[in-house]
């Protein structure tokens, strides 16, 4: 909760002194209702967010070549699922790729299978993905580098909690721990 407080302060400062960067990450509730969107799921099927009505959704943006932040978020969510026990089957993690060039549905499928959790991986055309990124006030940039890994993707790390009606309930910052996530989700599962 301490982190949430600081995240709020930082967000406030961002709004007040918003300079060159237009990072929206950390600003909770830019969307009040999780408007529907369409992307392609890890099985290559068309997917609408509205298909998850009735489920609690934890949504974030990432990419499978991500060495650090994404595995960390996935590990946190897997642990949060364990802490939620048998109620975890009413919670779905939605991983929205911001790397459509490499993250095909089958790549996403293999990636998510590793984490053994209730999850959906989404990809699409850049235009489709950009629309969802904008909707959530997230941000990413593809950075070309001389790295042997080719380009990498810098991205916002917020985690969005949507209730069973698809409304945004809370946004978790990257430094909010597993317990914050569990505490946010649990009241929705009563």
């Amino acid at each position, binding site marked *: 909760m301490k982190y949430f407080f600081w995240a709020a302060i930082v967000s406030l400062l961002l709004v007040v002194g918003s300079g060159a960067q237009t990072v929206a990450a950390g600003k909770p509730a830019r969307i009040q209702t999780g408007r529907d969107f369409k992307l392609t799921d890890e099985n290559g099927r068309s997917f609408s967010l509205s298909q998850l009505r009735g489920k609690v959704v934890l949504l974030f943006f990432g990419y499978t070549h991500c060495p650090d932040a994404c595995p*960390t978020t996935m590990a946190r969510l*897997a642990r949060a699922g364990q802490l939620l026990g048998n109620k975890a089957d009413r919670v779905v993690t939605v991983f929205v790729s911001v790397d459509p060039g490499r993250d095909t549905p089958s790549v996403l499928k293999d990636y998510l299978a590793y984490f053994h959790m209730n999850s959906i991986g989404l990809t699409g055309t850049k235009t489709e993905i950009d629309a969802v990124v904008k909707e959530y006030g997230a941000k990413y940039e593809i950075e070309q580098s001389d790295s042997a890994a080719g380009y990498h993707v*810098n991205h916002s790390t917020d985690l969005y909690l949507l209730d069973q009606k698809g409304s945004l309930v809370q946004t978790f910052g990257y430094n909010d721990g597993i317990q914050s996530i569990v505490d946010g989700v649990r009241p929705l599962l009563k």
Partner: protein
Amino acid sequence: MIFLALALAVGGPHEQISVHRPVATIDSELGMFGAATQMSEITIRDGWLQEAPPSQKITAAYMVIENHGKADIALTRATSPVIDVIELHKMELSNGFMKMKRVESINIPSGGEVELKPGGYHLMVIGLKQPLKEGDTVTISLEFSNGRRQAIEIPVKPRSAMMKEGE
């Protein structure tokens, strides 16, 4: 269990491992090379390579590097027989935005230590030549600005096993 001979990292001045902790195989190496460990200015401990999903060829490796010498020393290069390329990278979180940067070296201050850890510095592991799973160990040869080279052997661990309290 993948067990790679330390001798795989060839050439140049070469110190033997000084990895503290994990796995039995490393303990036995420490027994053999304990004297070399004490002579070294650099001590490396708590190393681990993050297990990657089977389809992924990219991951990261982490460790704590201590410098007991009288001068700063920089980590400049890392190689491994089972990895195509290792680069030095740094993550920077700013306003919730995570940026990754490649760095030329990582300075270890005299009398201090640097922890390579999630959210900070890591060895960027690019191109796993074979699948690496929990229970495997990996040899990585580290090169420092003073010309020293040190081979370490670190365990492969899933990220979930390395979560810290409150993370």
